[in-house]
């Protein structure tokens, strides 16, 4: 990896350079929170945001997306021309970049690459930025506090300047043209160490660090805890909507008013929806909230890991705020911590 240093005062120039050939999406203040939105000027960007309400996944997997158009009379399919905007996501945190890498595993790198996702992913540059955790952040417990790949530039705040990891030629060219880029000095490297350690110390110590989460998800699969957690679930789907890695969808045909033509549309879905595992004939393989909530956490904290060697939860903490019933991975970690404590006594 190539590392260079730029002054913080040069950041607006970098954003403007990106804006010349891309739509720049960045965290801006929106109501009581922050949101990733297309900006018109670098001044709009709030770089010391804690977390956005929803993750940047919406730019890769829109909540609703046509797959193709069809004509019912001729049974013809018209390929849908997905509109792909060359875009820079400026100021993504490590958790969200790691979340995107999880989506890459499903939509880009598997046996059936998804043409819509791949087109958007290829047309998007990611500029990451270092952050400080709030009380709901637990990315460090899931190995997502550092982005090792999946971005083009990563800006590490080292006090009035940025240590920049450069991982693509496209971004390197723009960076070098827009900013005065210099080699990192020993002083910069020491600043980087200080910044990293400040960050590590800032995580909420009340969120328990459970090393063997995946195995515990199997071991405590039948525990009453899931009934307690499931009993509170409102099946609202807010958790999946804000999650940077939730990607389940439904596929439906939507007809035009003439009834002759229409579109096949995929729309975001959530495994806590009561009908999610319903099959033809009426059998529901996950009939209760308990089974559905347990499945959701099982997939986040075990199932995905078994297939892709990393957890599907990246510890961004969004669902902690979004869930009105206080159902979230921190509750699961705390449950495992309690179980450990009981055994010792």
């Amino acid at each position, binding site marked *: 990896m190539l590392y260079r240093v730029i002054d913080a005062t040069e950041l607006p120039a970098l954003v403007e350079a990106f804006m010349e050939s891309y739509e720049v999406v960045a965290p801006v203040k929106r109501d009581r929170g922050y949101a990733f939105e297309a900006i018109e000027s670098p001044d709009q960007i709030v770089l010391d945001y804690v977390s956005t309400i929803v993750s940047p996944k919406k730019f890769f997997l829109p909540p609703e997306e046509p797959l193709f158009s069809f004509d*019912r009379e001729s049974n013809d399919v018209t390929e849908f021309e997905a509109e792909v905007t060359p875009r820079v996501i400026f100021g993504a945190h490590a958790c969200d970049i790691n979340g995107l890498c999880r989506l890459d595993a499903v939509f880009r790198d*598997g046996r*059936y690459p998804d043409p819509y996702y791949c087109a958007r992913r290829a047309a998007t540059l990611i500029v990451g930025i270092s952050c400080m955790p709030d009380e709901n952040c637990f990315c460090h417990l899931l190995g997502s506090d550092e982005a090792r790949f999946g971005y083009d530039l990563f800006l590490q705040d080292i006090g009035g300047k940025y240590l920049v990891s450069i991982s693509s030629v496209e971004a390197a060219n723009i960076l070098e043209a827009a900013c005065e880029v210099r080699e990192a000095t020993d002083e910069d490297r020491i600043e980087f160490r200080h910044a990293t350690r400040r960050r590590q110390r800032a995580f909420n110590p009340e969120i328990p660090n459970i090393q063997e989460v995946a195995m515990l998800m199997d071991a405590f699969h039948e525990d009453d805890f899931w009934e307690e957690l499931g009993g509170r679930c409102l099946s609202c789907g807010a958790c999946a909507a804000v999650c940077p890695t939730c990607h389940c*969808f439904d596929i439906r045909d939507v007809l035009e008013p003439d009834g002759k033509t229409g579109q*096949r549309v995929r729309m975001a*879905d959530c495994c806590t929806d009561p009908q999610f595992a319903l099959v*033809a004939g009426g*059998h529901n393989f996950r009939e209760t909230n308990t089974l559905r909530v347990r499945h959701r956490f099982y997939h986040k904290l075990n*199932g995905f890991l078994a297939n892709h060697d990393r957890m599907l939860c990246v510890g961004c903490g969004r669902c902690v705020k979004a869930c009105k019933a206080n159902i979230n991975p921190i509750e699961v970690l705390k449950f495992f911590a309690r179980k450990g404590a009981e055994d010792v006594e």
Partner: protein
Amino acid sequence: MSNNLASTVQVSPLSEYVPELTGEQMIAANPYRPWAARITSIQELTATEKLFEMRIVDERIRHAFKHEPGQFVEVSIFGVGEAPISITSSPTKQGFIELCIRNTGAFTARLHQMQCGDIVGLRGPYGRGFPVEQMKGSDILLVAGGIGIAPLRSLINNIHDERSEFGKVTIIYGSRSPKEVMFRDQFEMWRHRNDFDLHLTVDYPDDSWDGEVGLVTKPFETLEIDPDNTFGAVCGPPVMYRFVIDAMRQKGVSYDHIYCSFERHMKCGMGKCGHCQIGHQYVCLDGPVFNYWEAKNIQGSM
């Protein structure tokens, strides 16, 4: 003067040459796109089930379509939607795909109204089927309950068409009543063959029934099998699996020689939409056919 040019042949420069895409490339370009298939035959099997025979219209796509017993396709009716349906025909039958479909919801009701010559959309095949190559040389014990005969018939017909490749073949097929027995003509034809040990059973017989009566596990009471050299294949309603698998285990068939086909609503078929997940597995990618050892290791499978 123009006559002098009459023999001129127009040759396109090489740069304009665009090689024709193969069927595989056409499918990969957008895996969500269904391809037109014509219904070539419809056979009523029972009051609620019909057997549809289909032929993919585009020749290149048709040639690219190669399935194994146990795999499924996504069937489209534009404006109504899409549904995963297991393939009922054997891969040895080429050019046509048979689907056995129960009228059970909005989509299948619409399909049941369709006529020969009508067009539907198909994409696939998807999933992992029965390990036919691995099964060759061994005895095969097939157990189907109800609509579970649909995916198993693909394997049964495959075995039939390559009969000398397999050892002893036992088929147990249970239905609720004689009226619900599917593919009766076919099994009637095989009745006096001694290379298929056929047990058709019903729970509730009528006056016309001269087959066995009782659950699908009943024929196990008298069954003699060579457990070290037997593959089991099971498909039926969810409640059936435990009893049939227990019966096979009691006969000594190894965990990893018992294969069962799982039913879920595979909406995308490509390991993305999440609807068919069980534990850490996607039925559409890792299944729908799992052996019992794999199934035991999936949280929430049984």
